[in-house]
């Protein structure tokens, strides 16, 4: 059972996609796994034969538990049995989830309490992850931990989101950008690489433009500001006040809508029901994203003139902001269109996105 994100303590199999005895290639999806927060596909770490499925569907086990056995062709039943027995008798469930959650800290910037998660501080380069509208730092659960093996990573909750202050003074792009800039000053980060999603992408572009010395590489996932079209998702997200209204909107975010579990919808509803959230989200929407049903910001020229290394990632099935916005960009921007991916490529195609990030920074 893999560990996705720091809070994950246990998970279950929703369905096996391969049978016992089937040949598997490294990277192929073999099983779908559900956790408290999300449903996602588990890719095989190696080539081999799926010798045995250990975990049945819908049984919850702790992170690190044995869920299946992969091996070479001619391994006997007895050998597999022995391996499983040895594993189970030596297995101790991980109990580190509690301490790791305490890694999240808050910092006061422009009178707003900003919640952030920092993993690693001994690497040469820094990454700042900026989530999108209505999201929070947990959106990066398939990216941050993995990339912390190579870089110092900081994921923030924007004002009005996650665990940061819910009442915000302003909702415009400059205000949000300034929060990030001041964060870098407070944490003494002289040079950062920005990974920004959607609204976070727009903030990243603005930040690179306003702070030429601060930003090194820009990696933008489905960013705002590069075209007029944007789905009514943002307006509907704010207005939805029930599971029934919210679920179809959240499903728009993904190519694979089965990733939206009932628990996930409930978690988003709980966030929206906190005092101050509706007002803040409305402020950001009006000041930063929409005007007369069209995108408010035009960052095309700014992006085309940036001297930074820029990589843009777009899911070809993005229902929120269409991937065709890439056409407005000049050739100094590296464009990556991902197949079978929606607005949340960093979740749906995390391996590819992580590789693009590494290539961009190195």
């Amino acid at each position, binding site marked *: 059972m893999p560990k996705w994100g720091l809070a994950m303590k246990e998970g279950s199999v929703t369905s096996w996609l391969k049978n016992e005895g089937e040949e598997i290639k490294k990277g192929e999806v073999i099983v779908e796994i559900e956790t408290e927060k999300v449903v996602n596909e588990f890719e095989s770490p190696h080539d081999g034969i799926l010798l045995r499925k250990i975990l049945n569907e819908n049984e919850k086990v702790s992170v690190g538990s044995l869920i299946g056995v992969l091996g070479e062709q001619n391994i006997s039943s007895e050998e597999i049995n022995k391996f499983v027995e040895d594993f189970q008798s030596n297995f101790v469930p991980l109990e580190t989830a509690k301490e790791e959650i305490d890694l999240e800290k808050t910092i006061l910037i422009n009178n707003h309490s900003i919640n952030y998660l920092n993993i690693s501080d001994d690497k040469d380069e820094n990454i700042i992850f900026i989530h999108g509208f209505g999201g929070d730092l947990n959106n990066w659960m398939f990216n941050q931990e993995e990339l912390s093996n190579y870089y110092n990573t900081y994921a923030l909750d924007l004002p009005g989101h996650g665990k940061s202050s819910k009442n915000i003074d302003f909702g415009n792009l400059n205000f949000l950008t300034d929060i990030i800039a001041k964060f870098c000053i407070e944490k003494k980060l002289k040079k950062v690489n920005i990974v920004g999603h959607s609204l976070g992408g727009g903030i990243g572009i603005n930040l690179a433009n306003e702070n030429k010395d601060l930003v090194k590489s820009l990696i933008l996932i489905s960013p705002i500001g590069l075209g007029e079209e944007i789905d009514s998702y943002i307006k509907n997200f704010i207005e939805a006040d029930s599971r*029934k209204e919210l679920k179809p909107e959240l499903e728009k975010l993904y190519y694979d809508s089965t990733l939206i579990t*009932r628990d996930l919808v409930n978690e988003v509803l709980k966030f929206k*029901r*906190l005092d101050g959230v509706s007002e803040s989200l409305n402020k950001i929407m009006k000041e930063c994203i929409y005007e007369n049903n069209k995108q408010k910001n035009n960052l095309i020229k700014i992006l085309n003139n940036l001297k930074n290394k820029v990589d843009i990632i777009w899911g070809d099935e993005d229902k929120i902001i269409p991937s065709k916005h890439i056409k407005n960009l000049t050739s100094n921007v590296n464009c990556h269109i991902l197949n079978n991916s929606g607005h949340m490529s960093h979740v749906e195609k995390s391996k590819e996105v992580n590789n693009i990030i590494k290539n961009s920074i190195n």
Partner: protein
Amino acid sequence: MSKKTFREALNEAIAQEMRRDENVILIGEDVAGGAGGKGDQDAWGGPMGVTKNLAPEFGRERIIDTPISESAIIGTAAGAALTGLRPIADLMFVDFLGVCFDQIFNQAAKFRYMFGGKAKTPMTIRTMYGGGVRAASQHSQSLYPIFTHIPGLKVVIPSNPYDAKGLFIQSIRDDNPVIFLEHKMLYDEVGEVPDELYTIPFGEANFTREGSDITLISMGKTVNLCNNVADEMKKENVSCTVLDLRTLSPLDEESILEAVEGTGRVVIVDESYPRCNIATDISALICDKGFSSLKAPIKMVTPPHTPVPFSPALEDLYLPSAEKIKKAIHSILV
């Protein structure tokens, strides 16, 4: 967000909302305790300590101890609500509703209607219900069906700390009389509760489990019983949906019918007396609007039609239990 008890969640709801809105007052027997004579101020904070630390912060003009007169407590609150305050009135045990019922069902519930909408009665009555603590017949009842019966009253019944805080804040902010029911055995239950103010809309039930074989519907403390049963039934390869009603009035009919449609087999668990209770009310709804989904008769797990026993052995036999719920489930499984 942090782990809080049901009691702490309620205390936070009251304290934070009283800070935000100066019109909110709290009135009841020993909601502070200790006033007068040489007694400690804030000696009690209510019989279960829910309202501790409020009197020192908000003063005795907003935290009001009363004589033992339920009709005075509720009547005062109703009048105060009419004239612009948002009172929280403590009807300590729901069993005492008889003493003040006219104030509740003929006065507070009907002011807005009978004054042609020109009056509003934004009051919240919080009250303890439920058995299991050997408090005997007059201190263990679950009389919420009587409130649900009355048009003009909203009836709220949380099963966990998160719902308790959100629903209580919603109750205070609602401009109508709300009866907020707290099971006396839930106060030490722990759950994740946001530190900020938040609300939960009325009329929205919550799915705590999802399955395809059996639907369990309940309210308040018995929801937790249903959750445990659902988890145990997995070992028998039976998957259960559990629906926590959260508010009895307004009732989330849509979710009830959706839950029934998903399985076709329903067990309703209700700790109140069996005649004319919530289980019978929902059964009628399901038979009327969800008949084509049903694959078996609707089963109800309720106490028998007797007062709540004082004898521990009898009380344990009396209350809904995991065994009784499983028996009901087995009786309608294929």
